[in-house]
């Protein structure tokens, strides 16, 4: 990754144009030809420096349900509980964290009313209390990484 790649990453974490030839338009602002910009973005995606080059959608505004939930899972059954939780397709992420509440997962459902049902099923399957922590207010999202 060279200085031009870093400039591309820093400049294009948003504001990519919606136009006939957006790479040409974005390239002009960076002093790059359309073809070079496309090639470099493809290289960054292939190398894994970018996870994608795409619109970032706002999950809740798509009409689905979303929450963060946590459980205090005894160490001796941690892997069993993780498997039970992860088996639900509505679980998008699940992280082990160092705390009494040691399992944290994001539930995303097509319909908002399905979140409570998924949490209730997980509580019944595991016999553990599930702490629901839905977002009440969002202050900021989307770190702009400087590289």
């Amino acid at each position, binding site marked *: 990754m060279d200085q031009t790649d870093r400039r*591309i*990453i820093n400049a*294009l*974490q*948003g*504001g*990519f144009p*919606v*136009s006939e*030839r*957006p*790479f*040409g338009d974005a390239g002009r602002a960076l002093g790059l030809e359309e*073809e070079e910009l*496309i090639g470099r973005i493809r290289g*960054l*995606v292939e*190398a*894994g*420096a*970018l996870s*994608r*080059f*795409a*619109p*970032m*959608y*706002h*999950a809740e*505004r*798509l*009409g*689905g349900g*979303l929450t963060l939930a946590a459980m*205090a899972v005894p160490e001796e059954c941690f892997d069993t509980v993780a498997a039970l939780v*992860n088996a639900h397709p509505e679980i*998008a*992420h*699940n*992280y*082990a*964290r*160092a*705390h009494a*509440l040691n399992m944290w*997962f994001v539930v995303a459902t*097509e319909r908002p009313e399905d979140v409570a049902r998924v949490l209730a099923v997980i509580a019944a399957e595991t016999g553990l209390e599930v*702490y629901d*922590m839905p*977002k*009440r*207010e*969002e*202050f*900021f*999202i*989307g*770190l*702009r*990484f400087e590289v």
Partner: protein
Amino acid sequence: MIDTTDRRLIQATQDGLPLVPHPYHAVAGTLGLDPEEVMARLRRMLETGVIRRIGAVPNHYALGYRANGMSVWDVVDERITEIGRQVGALDFVSHAYHRPRHPPLWPYNLFAMVHGRSRDEVLAHVEAIAGVIGPAARAHDVLFSTRILKKTGLRLTG
């Protein structure tokens, strides 16, 4: 807010725009839509906030930000919005949310995800947040992830 054509457009673009000179025309061709309609729908979704932004989504781990900690704060309720905005504006915080407490096990109502190149850098950032909040934070903690158990990303399906 979004109709079935928007949903098709979201499904066609959420993993990546075609990396070609006319990407929106390429998407339109795939979906059998007019390119002008594709661009008009994307502009409308940007205006209404359905699309947060369009562009490069960095893989922060690959870029050297290998440590992240979920910092959590017990902030006096009357000041949660004001303090949440201050914390969210810090450049090392990627997400900041007001969430419900579950006392006594979980007294925290403000969550701020902190990123750094190392665990020590994350801890230094957490101390900086403590300085910003001051005595309005009655307690705080930082939870480091020890294992990723599942990570699929949020996907619009069906």
